[in-house]
Structure formats: structure tokens, C-alpha cells
């Protein structure tokens, strides 16, 4: 097994190998140990700077990356579009070049356009982490989902996983699908038919429009957020109708395996895609996902900051 991540950037899980995923997850497991200590900080990225470059509002992911960097003793700077010169008409590349000139060691980028982090990665020498690009990928979320599943279930290979909801607009779904299938899980997607991507077969997953059929025999159910902000037009008649056909609740969850778990990338629209009682029940591992997020992002920053030094020396 490789000890190095032989890439400069983490842009998506599409081309991640099983070995690379395992390296990140194993590294994250060691990072999680640190988070249990009284002093939750190690000096390995001392003197390094991580810049969170967010062109789209985000509290959780940004905070998670910020804490991850600080736990490793990196200096973390947040740069958000709302207060930046993007509003003054500066182009994406100009903004990024300006930031690169300040010599950061890792750039964490979120952007509402798919491919924006890839564009920056091609033009900049600093490692770029995609923290979510449009409806394309969200690799750190995909990795933390894999980490949580492996931790709770003891394995990923051979598990039956359902991803439920708005697959079409979800970068989380895409990263989850790539990661899960690479690790040998069997993935089913389910949601209102306009929200199921037409090319789903190419993704190596099964699709169904019947939630009862979809839930049967599943080990893991990943519920996606209804993202009204990403829908340009109406993809389903009403929230009420969505809840009736695709909302997950305790009663429906009985169709899945007895020890099945429920996951959600947050923030939850309580009572919409996920019923209150289920979100707070012990089959829900939502808070464990958040906890895993810090450990996985520590692993990502650690592995990338190291790669750069390898390239330079």
C-alpha cells in the first residue's frame, strides 16, 4: 500500500483509486485519535498556511476545514466572496493568483460553478482541495461518508447503500457514488424521476422511483437535502408531495435492514426529507459524520501539504 498521495490536488473522487481512499481513511483514523485527547493539536503543519477560498456561502464545510487546519497547527485564513473583490469584477483566476502570491500551502476552494477548482488547479502550483463545486463533486464529504460507514459498519465492500433524494443537483451524491462503488459497495439511487440523472447507468448504480422497493435490504441510507436554492425550475409539485413519496421516516426505515444507519450531509430540512424522530434516533449517524469530517479534512490537509514538499525537493 502506498504511503503517499501521488497527486497535487483533491478535486473529486471520480479518479481516486481504492488505495488512495484507504490511505486517506487510515490517516483520518489516526487524526481522530488526536481529537479524543485533552490537547487536540499536533505541530505537523506548523508554519503552513491554509486558505479557505469560498465563493459560495458555507458555514459547516468552511468551519470543518478551519478546525482541521488549526488542529494541525496550520494558520488558516478565510476568504469569502461576499467581502472580497470578486464583487468588484475581478476574475476567478485573478483572485486566485493574488492569493497564491501570498504563498499559501493549500487552497480550499468552494464555487457555485462546476469545474472552478479544476480550473484553478491547472493554473496554480499550490495544491487545491475542492470543497464543493456546483453540482459536480464534494470529495471531502464523500470521504467522510466513507469513513463514517467504515467506522460504524466495519467495512464498505459488499454493503447495500441507498442514496435518496435530489441526485441530479447533488455534488455529495456524485462523490459518494464514485467513492462507494470504488470501494465495492452496491449503490442504489432513488428520488423523483426528474431528479435522477439520465446517465445513472454509467455511474454503476441502480435507480428506482419507488422508495419502498429502494429501502428493502439496505445497510446504509444516505438522505440528501432538498436544495431549493439549486433548482432553477420546479422539479416536483410541492414539498408536501415530496415528503409523501420520498420523505424518510421511522415507519419506512423498517424496510431497511434491522441494523441499518441513516446519514445526511446536513443541514437537515427537518420534516421534509428526513422526519424529526428519525433524525434524532440512534440509527442516525449525522453527528458522527460531522465529527469524522474534521478528522478526514485533517488527513487531506496533511497528505497534500506533504506532497508539495516532495515535489519541491
Amino acid at each position: 500500500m502506498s504511503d503517499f498521495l501521488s497527486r497535487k490536488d483533491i478535486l473529486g473522487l471520480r479518479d481516486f483509486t481504492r488505495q488512495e481512499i484507504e490511505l486517506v481513511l487510515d490517516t483520518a483514523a489516526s487524526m481522530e485519535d488526536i481529537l479524543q485527547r485533552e490537547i487536540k493539536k499536533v505541530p505537523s503543519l506548523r508554519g503552513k498556511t491554509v486558505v479557505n477560498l469560498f465563493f459560495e456561502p458555507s458555514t459547516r464545510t468552511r468551519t470543518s476545514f478551519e478546525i482541521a487546519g488549526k488542529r494541525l497547527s496550520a494558520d488558516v485564513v478565510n476568504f469569502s466572496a461576499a467581502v472580497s473583490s470578486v464583487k468588484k469584477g475581478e476574475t476567478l483566476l485573478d483572485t486566485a493568483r493574488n492569493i497564491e502570491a501570498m504563498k499559501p500551502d493549500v487552497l480550499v476552494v468552494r464555487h457555485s460553478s462546476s469545474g472552478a477548482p479544476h480550473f484553478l488547479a491547472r493554473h496554480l502550483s499550490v495544491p487545491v482541495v475542492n470543497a464543493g463545486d456546483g453540482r459536480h463533486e464534494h470529495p471531502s464529504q464523500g470521504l467522510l461518508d466513507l469513513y463514517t460507514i467504515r467506522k460504524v459498519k466495519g467495512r464498505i465492500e459488499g454493503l447495500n447503500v441507498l442514496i435518496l433524494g435530489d441526485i441530479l443537483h447533488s455534488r455529495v451524491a456524485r462523490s459518494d457514488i464514485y467513492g462507494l462503488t470504488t470501494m465495492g459497495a452496491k449503490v442504489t439511487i432513488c428520488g423523483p424521476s426528474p431528479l435522477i440523472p439520465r446517465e445513472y447507468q454509467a455511474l454503476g448504480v441502480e435507480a428506482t422511483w419507488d422508495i419502498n422497493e429502494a429501502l428493502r435490504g439496505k445497510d446504509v441510507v444516505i438522505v440528501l437535502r432538498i436544495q431549493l436554492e439549486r433548482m432553477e425550475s420546479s422539479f416536483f409539485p410541492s414539498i408536501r408531495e415530496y415528503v409523501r413519496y420520498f420523505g424518510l421516516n421511522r415507519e419506512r426505515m423498517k424496510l431497511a435492514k434491522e441494523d441499518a444507519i441513516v446519514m445526511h450531509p446536513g443541514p437537515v430540512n427537518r420534516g421534509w426529507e428526513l422526519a424529526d424522530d428519525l433524525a434524532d434516533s440512534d440509527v442516525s449517524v449525522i453527528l458522527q459524520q460531522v465529527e469524522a469530517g474534521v478528522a478526514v479534512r485533517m488527513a487531506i490537509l496533511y497528505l497534500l501539504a506533504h506532497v508539495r514538499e516532495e515535489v519541491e525537493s
Partner: protein
Amino acid sequence: MGSKEKVIMDGKSIDRALSRIAHEILERNKGADDLIIIGICTGGIPLARIIVDKIKKIEGVEVPSGYIDITLYRDDLSRIGYHPKLKKTEIPGSIDDKTIVLVDDVLYTGRTIRAAMDALIDFGRPKAIQLAILVDRGHRELPIRADFVGRNVPTSRSEVVDVKVEGEVKEWKVVIREREENE
């Protein structure tokens, strides 16, 4: 590597050295009270285990023991050949006001020990930290010395010291050899 390899300690002499170290640890600390033995990943782990066994035979006490991974505390992240693969750390209970004996196989520049002390201090405030080493090969770059030494061996920087203490005592050995090109 075979032909250039030179055995500098065999199983018997390693075993004797570790017995002596176990006695010295007990003598210095006037018994095994408040002692914790910590092996440094990965070479120090089997040695720490052997020392714990020996103390048990001598004193009849099972001293708490653990191991520590110092990867995240290193100061040579940028050096070629450095492997960032993280290992596990396991510290038994609180180390506050305990005497910690750090155990490693080879003492060289002292940088590993510096990192191990930094890592330990993040877990609490030990009363004292002592260092037990099987082979001290010299070339220190930091003001660090061992409290308990199996053997002092003069080496050149182009050489490598390998310690093997797996299986039966007769299979144990310490060898010295020339560093290979890709090492």
C-alpha cells in the same frame, strides 16, 4: 545487503543488555511504582514489551505500558524518504506525575526523541521522562542522551543499524550495514 552485513549483537547479548536495563530502571526509580514504559513506533515497541516482561519477572509487577507514534511531531517532513504514513498511539491512563521510560531501538540524531518528548507532553505533565536505548550509535544533533543504554556502537553516517527482536531469543540480532542507494 547480505555480504556487507555485520552482526554486532546476537540474541544472547541483546537479552542480557535488556535484563540489565530492566534492573537499572528499577534501581534508578527505587522500584516500579508510578512507572510507565512507552515504546516509540515502531522499533521501540517490541523492546518495551520485553522490558515490561523482565520487570515483571524481577519485581512481580506488571508496569503499565503503551506506544507512541511521533510522525506528526517530526521536524523533517520535507526530507526525502520520509514516510507520512501515520501509526497509532496508545498511552495507558494519565501520565501526570508518572515517570515515563521512553524506549527505542537506536539512538542517532536525537530528533526522534525530541519529537517523542513533545508528543508525550501533549498528554500531560509527567514527573520525569527517562530514555532507554538498545544501541547508541552517536552523531547526535540535539542535546539528548540516554539514561539506559544497551551498547554504544561507533558508526559512520553512511551505515545503517538494524535491530531485530522478533521470535525466539536466538533469532534476535543487531546488524550494521552500508546504507543502500534508495534508502
